[in-house]
C-alpha cells in the first residue's frame, strides 16, 4: 500500500467484518471499564469523610435528630456493611437500575436523562465550534509562512492553557456586563448558549489546532501533495482535496478525548453560567455524598466516552485506509 493511493484497499466486505469485530471487542472492554469506574467511584466516595445521612438531612444551621438519621439510614441501606452496600448497588446497576437519589428523592435514571440533554448539547456544540476554530486557525497559520506558524502556534498554546473559569468570567464581563450583547445565564433562546460554548470551545480549539497544524504541514509536504501539484492542482485544491483529510485524522482520534475534556469542563461551565446539566448535578451530588447520583453520572459519562472512542476509532479507520481494520 502506497500512502495516498486510496485504490489499494482490501476487499470491502472483509474489512467491514473486521471493523465490526473490532467494535465488538472494544465494547466488551468498555463493559470492564464501566465496572471499574463504578467500583472506584463507590469506594472513593465512601472513603472520604462525611456521612451521607447527615449530609442529606442537615444543611447549615439545621441539626438532624437521632430518629431522623436512623430512619434515613434504614431507608437507604446505609446501616449495612460497606461491602454489602457495594454488592447491592452493583447488582442493581447490572440490571440497569440506577437506584434513587439520597438527596433529591427521585429515581436517578430519569433525573440524569433530564439533565443529559443540556450537557450533550453543550458538548456537541463546543466540539463542533472547537473543530471549526481549529481548522480555520490551522489552515490560516500554515499559509502564513514561518511568522504565521509562530503566531498560530502561540495562539494554540495560549488557548489550550486558558482555564474555563477564567475565560468564562472574562467573557461575562465583556459581553454581558460591558457590551450587553449576550446573557450571562441560560435563556429560553439560543443566545444563552453562546458564552458557555465559546468558553469550552476556545481551549479545545487550542489542543485540536496544535495537532491539526502539524499534520497539515506534513501532508502538504508529502509526496501525494507534490504529485497533485505536479498534476496541475491549485494550492487550494491540494489543501481541500488531499491535505485536510490527513490533517483531520489526529483531530478525529482526539475527539474521543475531547469529549471527556468537555464533560469535565461542563462541571465548571454549567455552574458559572447557571445552566442545568450533568456537570452541575455531579458537583452537587459529590458535595452531598449522594452516591447513587455520582455513580450514575460517572457511569453515564464513561459510557458516552467509550461510545465516542469506539466511533472515532472506527471513523479513523474508515478515513484512513492505511490503518489496519
Amino acid at each position, binding site marked *: 500500500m502506497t500512502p495516498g493511493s486510496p485504490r489499494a484497499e482490501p476487499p470491502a466486505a472483509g474489512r467491514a467484518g473486521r471493523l465490526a469485530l473490532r467494535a465488538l471487542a472494544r465494547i466488551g472492554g468498555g463493559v470492564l471499564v464501566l465496572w471499574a469506574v463504578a467500583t472506584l467511584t463507590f469506594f472513593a466516595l465512601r472513603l*472520604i*469523610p*462525611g*456521612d*451521607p*445521612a*447527615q*449530609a*442529606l*438531612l*442537615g*444543611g*447549615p*444551621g*439545621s*441539626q*438532624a*435528630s*437521632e*430518629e*431522623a*438519621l*436512623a*430512619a*434515613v439510614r434504614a431507608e437507604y441501606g446505609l446501616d449495612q456493611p460497606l461491602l454489602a452496600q457495594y454488592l447491592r448497588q452493583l447488582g442493581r446497576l447490572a440490571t440497569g437500575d440506577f437506584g434513587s437519589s439520597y*438527596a*433529591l*428523592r*427521585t429515581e436517578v435514571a430519569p*433525573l440524569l436523562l*433530564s*439533565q443529559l440533554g443540556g450537557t450533550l448539547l453543550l458538548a456537541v456544540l463546543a466540539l463542533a465550534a472547537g473543530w471549526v476554530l481549529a481548522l480555520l486557525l490551522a489552515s490560516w497559520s500554515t499559509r502564513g509562512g514561518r511568522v504565521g506558524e509562530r503566531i498560530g502556534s502561540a495562539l494554540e498554546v495560549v488557548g489550550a492553557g486558558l482555564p474555563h473559569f477564567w475565560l468564562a*468570567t472574562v467573557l*461575562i*464581563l465583556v459581553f*454581558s*456586563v460591558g457590551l*450587553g450583547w449576550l*446573557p*450571562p*445565564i*441560560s*435563556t429560553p433562546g439560543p443566545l444563552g448558549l453562546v458564552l458557555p460554548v465559546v468558553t469550552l470551545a476556545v481551549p479545545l480549539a487550542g489542543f485540536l489546532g496544535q495537532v491539526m497544524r502539524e499534520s497539515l504541514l506534513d501532508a502538504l509536504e508529502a509526496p501525494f501533495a507534490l504529485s497533485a501539484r505536479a498534476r496541475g492542482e491549485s494550492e487550494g485544491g491540494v489543501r481541500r482535496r488531499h491535505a485536510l483529510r490527513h490533517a483531520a485524522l489526529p483531530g478525529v482520534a482526539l475527539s474521543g478525548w475531547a469529549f471527556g475534556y468537555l464533560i469535565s469542563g461542563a462541571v465548571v461551565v*454549567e*455552574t*458559572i*453560567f*447557571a*445552566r*442545568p*446539566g450533568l456537570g*452541575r*448535578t455531579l458537583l*452537587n451530588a*459529590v*458535595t*452531598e*455524598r449522594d452516591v447513587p447520583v455520582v455513580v450514575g453520572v460517572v457511569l453515564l459519562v464513561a459510557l458516552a466516552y467509550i461510545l465516542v472512542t469506539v466511533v472515532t476509532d472506527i471513523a479513523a479507520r474508515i478515513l484512513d485506509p492505511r490503518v489496519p481494520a
Partner: protein
Amino acid sequence: MPRTSRLPLLSSALLGALVLAGCTPSGGDGGARGGPGGTGEPVAGGTLVYASGDAEPTCLDPHVGGNYPQALVSGQYLESLVSRDSDGQIIPWLAAEWTEAADGLSWTFILREDVTFTDGTPFDAAAVAANVEHVKDPETGSSTGYLAMGKVTAVEAVDARTVTFRLSEPDSALLESLSQPWVAMQSPAGIARGIDENCEAPIGTGPFVVDEWVKQDSITLLRNEEYASPPADAAHTGPAYLESIVWRFIPESATRYAALQSGEVDVIDNAQPDTLVAAAGEDGLTELNAPRPGSSNRLELNSGKAPFDDERVREAFIRSASVDAGIETLFFGTAERSYSPLSSVEALAHAEPDLFGYDLDAAQELLDDAGWTQRDAEGYRVKDGQRLTLEFPVSTNQSIPAEQSLFEQIQASTKEAGFEVRLSLLDLSSWYAVLAANEYDVVSAPYTKVGPDVLRILYSSSGITPAPSGYFANHAQVSIPRLDELLTLASQTSDPDARADYYEEAQTIVLEGFYILPLYDQQNHYLLRDGVRGLRALPTVSTPTLYDTWLAEG
C-alpha cells in the same frame, strides 16, 4: 390566670384589615393599575426573576430537613401561625390570637377565619395538628422544625378554629419557634401525598403557588388569586401584585451580579462584599441588608480539650486576633463588628466591646502564665514538647471567600503571639465529620433561629454530647452549671423582664469566659433593580417576601 396575647391592638387592626380585604377587588390580570410613572401606586402584574446564590433545595417542603435555602423560597407559598415585626414582637398571621395557660404547659391558638389552602382544603385546627405531627414524625426527616417542636407533646383540635398545644415543660420560645418557616402550615391533603410528591410542590396558604420545578434551573411560582391571609405587618391585603415569580439558582456570585446588571434577573441574594461595593457605585441598584436572627457569626473556641481548656489561652487567642482591620479591608464596610453571641436583630442581644480589644502584649503575658513559654524555630510556642497548634476546619459552604480571608488574617495575627492556626477548607460533609470527631479547636458555625433561645442550643451543656449523627451545637463545649440553670429558667419563665435578665447573665458568662470571638452578624444582603418596589425581608428569619412587591414601569 391565662396570659393573653400582648397584641390586642394589632389583632383588631388585623381584623379591620381582613374586612377591608373582603372589599378590595382582587388584583388585575397583568393590567397596570398604578398611576403614571409607576412610582407611588403599586402596579399589579408582571414576572419577577429572583436569583438565589444559596444551594438549590433538595425538597421544597421545609419540614423535610429544614435549611435556609428552603426557607428562602418556601416563604412565598407557605405561611406560619405567627410572625415577628421589626421591633421583635410576635404578631398574628394564620393564628389571630393566643393564650398561654397559667402553668405554661399549654397554649391555645384561635385561628384566622376563612383561610383555605390552595388545593381548597380549609385551614383549620385539624390542619395545624396534622402539620405538627408531620414535623415530629421521624419518617419526615425534619431536623430544624423537629427541634423547634421539641417540647410539644400533643396538639389538640378543640373546635375548627381553636387548637391547643400541650407541652412537656413551659417554653417561652414557643411563639418564636412557630414563627419560623420550618414549621409553616401545609395542606394535610398535600402532606398525605407522601414525601416524594410533596417535596416537588408543597401546598400552602401563601400568596404564590408552586407551578413547576425544573431541577438545577428554576422554580416557577404563580399568584394565588384567592389569597387572603397576609401577616399583620404586610403593606396591603388581597392577592399579591406580581403575577408570577421565576426563582432561579445561580451559584456563581459574579454571574449572579452580571445577570442583575444586564437585567436578566430583578433580585439577587447572597450579594458578596465586593459586589455590594460595586453596586453602590452603580445607578439603578438598591441594597437590602437583612442580617439573620439567632447567633452572630463568631469563632467558637473548643474549651473541651487542650489547649483551650485553659481560659488564659482562650483569652490570649482573642487578644492577639486582629479582627477589626480585617473586617474593614475584606468587607469594605458592608459588615459591622459584633461583640455579642446573638445577632443584632435580637432585642435581647448583649454586647461587651471592652472584652475584645486587640492587645498583643497581654496575650504574650497570658501565654507565659499558662506555661507556653518556649518558642520553636518557626516562632510557635511550645510546652512539654507540644506546639501550640489550633485546628480550624472551615466549611466552604458556610464561609464566603471574604470570611475565609478574614480567617487567614486572624491566623497571621495570632501567629505573632505564637499560635499555629491550621486552616483547612472542607466541604460540608467533611466538615461535619471533623466536628463530630472533636478534631477542632476553633470553628465558625453560625446558627439561624428566631429569638434568644438559640443560646440554649449553643451553650447548654447538653449540646456537647454529639447525637449519633455526630451533630451537636455547643461547639465551644461550654459546660457551666449556672449557665445551664439560667438557660433553663429563661426558657421556662413567662415573665419577659426575668427572661431578659436571665439571657443577659447567660451571655455575660459566655463572653467573659472567652468562649467565643464574635465577628459580625450573619450577613444577608439582597440587591434589587430600581424597578422592584415593596420588597422586604420578613423579620423572622430575614427571608424576602415578595407579597408586597411590585414592578414599576421602566
